[in-house]
C-alpha cells in the first residue's frame, strides 16, 4: 500500500483533531492569597463570615463556594463582594466541631476559572 501526499495530509489533519481531545485539569489564574480562617478560628455552633482574598478581580455572579462536610457532602454557600476588589465574603452556617473544607469555583476577570479547596477545623 502506498500513501499519496493528499492522503498523508488528510491523515495528519485527523490525527491533530483527534489528539485535540486530550485533556487535563481546570485552568487556574485567580488564587486565594489570604483568608480569615488563617487568622481567626470559627467557633462551633455559631454562624460566621469567612473572608477570601484573591490575587485578581473576580466575577462573583459566575463563582460558587461550597461547604464540604464529612463524607464530602457539599452545600452551596451565599457569597457577597467585599469592600475591596478581589474579596469574597462567605456566609457560613453554625457548624458542629469537626473537619470541613471550602470548595470554590471562581471566575477571574481574566476569564480563567479556578477550582480549589481550603481545609479548616472547628474546635469544640
Amino acid at each position: 500500500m502506498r500513501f499519496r501526499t493528499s492522503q498523508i495530509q488528510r491523515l495528519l489533519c485527523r490525527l491533530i483533531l483527534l489528539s485535540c481531545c486530550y485533556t487535563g485539569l481546570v485552568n487556574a489564574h485567580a488564587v486565594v492569597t489570604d483568608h480569615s480562617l488563617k487568622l481567626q478560628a470559627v467557633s462551633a455552633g455559631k454562624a460566621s463570615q469567612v473572608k477570601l482574598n484573591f490575587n485578581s478581580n473576580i466575577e462573583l455572579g459566575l463563582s460558587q463556594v461550597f461547604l464540604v462536610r464529612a463524607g464530602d457532602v457539599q452545600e452551596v454557600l451565599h457569597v457577597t463582594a467585599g469592600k475591596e476588589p478581589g474579596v469574597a465574603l462567605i456566609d457560613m452556617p453554625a457548624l458542629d466541631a469537626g473537619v470541613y473544607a471550602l470548595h470554590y469555583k471562581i471566575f477571574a476577570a481574566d476569564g480563567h476559572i479556578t477550582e480549589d479547596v481550603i481545609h479548616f477545623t472547628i474546635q469544640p
Partner: protein
Amino acid sequence: MEGIADFLDSIIGGIDLICYSLAIGGLIWGLFILHPWEYAHKQDKVQSILTEQTIRLIYKGAFALALVQFIKIILKIWLMDSILERWPFPEFASTTQFIGGIFRLSLAIALAAFVYSALRHNASSRQHWFNAAIIAGLMIISGAWLVHAAGRFEYRAILMALTTLHQVAAAVWIGGVFQLVGIWQLTRQKRIPDSYWPDSLRRFSRLGMIAVAAILLSGTPMALNYITSWNGFIGTGYGNILLVKILLLAIALGFAWLNRRAVLQYASAADKHDVFNRVPYYIEAETFVLITLLFTAASLASQPPAIDIPELTATWGEVLHSFAPRIPLTTSPSHAALLAGEAGRTAIIGQTPSAAATAWSDYNHNIAGIFVTVMSLFAMLSYRKSLTWTRYWPVGFIGLGIFILLRADAETWPNGTMGFWESMLENGEIFQHRIATLLVFLLGGIELRARMTSDPESKLPYIFPILCAFGGLMLLTHSHVGFQAKSSFLIQIGHTFMGLFALIMAIGRWLELKLDSPGKNIAGFISVFAFFQIGLILIFYQEPLY
C-alpha cells in the same frame, strides 16, 4: 465534557496568537517592508505578486482570528456551563471577558472585511494601508482587556500595555517569518526571480531585530513583576513555563542568527549556497519553534504568577529531586492496592495520599522510559551502515502503545471492572487516553513504513517530526494547576521538559531530512539525543506523594 472544553479553551489561545501574527505581522510587513504604494506607477509584476500574497495572508489571518475569537467565547460559555452546572447568562454578558471579546471579534471581522473588500482591490493605495492599520490598532487595543493583566490590582494599566506591546512585537517577528515561508514557496515555484529571496531576508532582518528587542523590553519588566524570587522562577508553573519560553526564544534566535549569517555571506561574497539550500529549512524549523512559543505563551497566561503563590512554591531541592537519577521502578503495586487507596486520595475531607497510586504512576513512566531509551539507543546505532536492522527501532512505539493501553486507566479493561467500549463511552478522559494510545501506535507504524520505503520522493518521513512537534506542543500547553498546586507543578515540570525535547527532536529530524551535510548529520544527532533525554526523564520520573 468539562475536560474537553477546558483543553480546547487552553489550546485555542495558541491558535488565536497564530492568527493574530498572520494578520498583524502581515500588515506590518506591508507597511514597513513592501511599501506597495511606491510601485503604484511602475507596473512591477513581481511586486504585485508579493503584495497579493501579503494581503491574502492578512485577510485569511483576520478572518481566522474572528472565528477563533468567536469559538473562544463559545468555549468559555461551555466551560462555565460544565463547571458551574448552570447556564452562565445573564451574568456572563456583563463581564469584561464577554464585552471585550465581542469588541475584539467585531474589530477582527471589520479588519478582515476591509482588507478583503477594499485593500485587496487597492493594494497600492497608501491610504487604504493606513486605514487597515487604524482598524488593526483598535483591535489590538481591544485585546488589552482580555489579557490576564486586566485582572490585576497593581500596575494594571502598565501591565496591560506591556502585554499588548509584547504581543504585537511577537506578531511582527512571527508574522514576518510566515511571510518569508510564503516568499520561499513563490521562489521555489519560480513565480518570482531568485534575487527576491535574499532581498526579502535582508529587509526583514532589521525589522526582526527591532521586534526581538521590543519583545525583550516589554517581557522583562512583566517577568520581574510576576516573579520576584529565584525560587519563584524555578519552583512554580509560571516560572517553569517562562523558562521554557526563554529557551525556545534562544533556539529561535539561534536560527535567526544562522539566517543572518547566510544573508551577510551572500551580500559580501555572493555565496548563494546557504541562502538557497539551508536558510529556507532553518526558517521552517524556526516556524516550528515560534508556533510552539505562541502556544507556550498562551499556556503561561493560564498560570497564577509566582508572586501570588509563595506558600505553594516548590524549593530548588524539590525540583531537583524530580529529576534525580535512581533505579527505575520495575515492579508495580497490585491493582487491588491501587484501588484501595483511590477513595482516600480523591476525597476532600480526610484526603489521604496513596503510595500505591504514586508507585503505579512511577512504574508506568519508568517502564515507558525504558522503551524510549532503548528505542533512542537503537536509533543512534541505525546510523552505522553495518547495523541496518536497527532502522526498525520505531517498532518500539507499538510495544509502548500496548503498554499504555494496558496500564493507563486502571479502572478499566483489562485490569478494572469496566469494559473496553463501555469505559470509552462513559468516561471522556478514558476516551482521550485511548486516542493518545492510538497516536503512539500510528507514530510507530508510520515511521516504520517511512524507514522501510525505497521511494526517495515519499513524504512519509515528514509525518514523524510533525507529530513529534505536535506532541511536544501538547505537553507544553498541557500545564495546569488544580487542587494541590505544588504537587501538580512537580508533576508538570518533567512533562514540560519532555515537551521541549520533543520539539528539539522534531526540528532535528526535520532538518536531517532537509539539509545537506554536515548540517544533516548534526541535526540527526541532536534529534536522537533529544529522544534519549526524553527516555532519561521518564526512566527517573517520580511523582510526589499526594
